[in-house]
């Protein structure tokens, strides 16, 4: 009966109910979108690192987190030195230059890249041939509406788009390494060195040897490096998520508090009627809380549905810059955050309603 009473109350003012659900749904979408972006961008980076086909990565001494890009600091001569190590099949130096964050252009040695990764899959055009040539992946081409033959201005330099490749290897923007080194005034310097070992059983011995020989560099297996592309491993992401969740609670609280406060005002006489029938304070409070929780559940469902819309919008408008994935494990978390805010928001109007004097409530016009 309580459920019926609450449902009929929600149906009686459909616009209020729908607006409340919509406003509660917005922070749910916000939470799920930001969590989905964090996961999506890290998964995308992880995927592109995996696509390189290396076993070990050597980073400069100034390199810190996976999402920071430090300047080229590794002498290029290190590549030859690493290749002389036993069991090292191939070493490839890469220069990375941030453009419009989180996008970066990578300068590579195309011959070595082809040997290490198996090469790019060309959707149109061909490989780098001239100094000003650039390869872009299909996501960047879609985002910037570029085709083979177009000119692309990056780092104050006009590049000639010669090929569009399938995304998933190394970077979205690829140029010749020496050209990028010259533009960066970092001739003979590298950002990372990727190392391919002859047999997987030799990865650990090679890693240990490199760490002994190059104590000032950060050297890890690619497996470990890729595992670092994890929201929990990146400083600030957890705090950022907590802040977004707190915003969700505040918005849910404010929306429900306002909505239920108005509802209680409009239903003063009905509360008086229920009290005249012997309804306890707990019953009155319970109906208000249940109504708020139903609005919260509706908002959560709508928020989840809208997050699919967010993913579609992001994938359509900025497929190269931002990637968003749906993270179903966050649905119950976002739901609980919302229900907590909704429950909190319903407490004040609910207690207000429960404390109504029945005689005054019955006389309310």
């Amino acid at each position, binding site marked *: *009966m309580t459920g019926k009473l609450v449902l009929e109350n929600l*149906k*009686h003012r459909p616009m209020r109910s729908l607006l409340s659900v919509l406003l509660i749904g917005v922070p749910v979408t916000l939470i799920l979108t930001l969590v989905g972006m964090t996961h999506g961008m890290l998964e995308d980076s992880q995927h592109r690192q995996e696509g390189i086909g290396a076993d070990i990565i050597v980073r400069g001494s100034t390199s810190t987190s996976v999402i920071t890009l430090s300047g080229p600091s590794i002498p290029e001569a290190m590549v030859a030195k690493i290749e002389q190590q036993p069991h090292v099949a191939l070493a490839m130096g890469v220069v990375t230059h941030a453009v419009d964050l989180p996008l970066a252009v990578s300068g590579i040695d195309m011959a070595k890249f082809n040997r290490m990764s198996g090469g790019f899959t060309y959707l149109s055009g061909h490989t780098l041939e001239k100094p000003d040539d650039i390869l872009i992946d299909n996501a960047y081409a879609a985002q910037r509406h570029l085709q083979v033959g177009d000119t692309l201005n990056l780092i104050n330099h006009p590049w000639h788009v010669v090929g569009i490749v399938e995304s998933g290897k190394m970077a979205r923007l690829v140029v010749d390494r020496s050209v990028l080194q010259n533009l960066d005034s970092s001739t003979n310097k590298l950002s990372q060195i990727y190392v391919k070992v002859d047999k997987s059983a030799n990865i650990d011995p090679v890693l240990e040897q490199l760490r002994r020989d190059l104590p000032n560099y950060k050297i890890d297996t690619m497996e470990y490096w890729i595992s670092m592309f994890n929201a929990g491993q990146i400083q600030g992401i957890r705090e950022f998520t907590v802040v977004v969740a707190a915003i969700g609670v505040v918005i849910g609280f404010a929306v429900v508090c306002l909505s239920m406060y108005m509802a209680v005002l409009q239903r003063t006489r009905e509360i008086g009627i229920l*009290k005249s029938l*012997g309804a306890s304070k707990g019953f009155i409070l319970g109906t208000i809380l249940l109504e708020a929780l139903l609005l919260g559940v509706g908002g959560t469902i709508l928020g989840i549905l809208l997050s699919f819309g967010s993913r579609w919008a992001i994938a359509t408008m900025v497929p190269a810059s931002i990637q968003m994935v749906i993270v179903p494990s966050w649905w119950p978390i976002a739901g609980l955050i919302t229900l907590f805010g909704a429950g909190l928001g319903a407490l004040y109007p609910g207690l207000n309603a429960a404390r109504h004097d029945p005689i005054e409530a019955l006389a309310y016009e």
Partner: protein
Amino acid sequence: MNNGDIISIRGLRKTYRVGSVEVPALRGVDLSVRAGEFLSIVGPSGSGKSTLFHIIGGLTPPTEGEVQVAGENLASMTDAGRTRMRRRTVGFVFQKFNLLPNLTARDNIAVARFIAGANSKPDPAFEEVLRLLGIAERLDHKPHALSGGEQQRVAIARAIVNHPAILLADEPTGNLDTENSKAVLEILRDLNARAGQTILMITHNPEAAGYGHSTLHMRDGRIVERT
């Protein structure tokens, strides 16, 4: 309290505080009502009729005096105790019907049973009462789709669904035309005669007051005459 008295009131006073001003609504009321009695209460506005009803119905506590209703002392009762008493001991019928607008007539009756902790489906005898009230075919309509007379009959059904010891009717015909007023008064008299339902009815209408066994006249917070 005499044997057979369902209401026994001695020295009842009720004072409301409006800001810093104390407003006496009842100034010493003594009243006995036998079980099965149909008592009409008349008097001008501000005479204390409604306040007396609200105290007997457990909607507000007395300021002073002894109030026994169906064997329970309301003067010493807590707010929660008066809430419990309203579930089964008294039933209210109001001038403005006071049905829950979002629920059908059937659900308006069911909600009273639910709050009282009873099965939401009324007993078979009550189905007969619904037929006598003439609303059996209108139970699936919401109040806005019912006439005033029908709404008041639903309100009466809701008030008696838990078989309360006392039915308190506050100007039950105040918003009805002559025909519907007569029908509602007949229903109340029938309930009293057939089921022995104790009824207290506030009215401004002398003709309506005539439906009771006796009439209580109130003025300035006191009972001035019982005829």
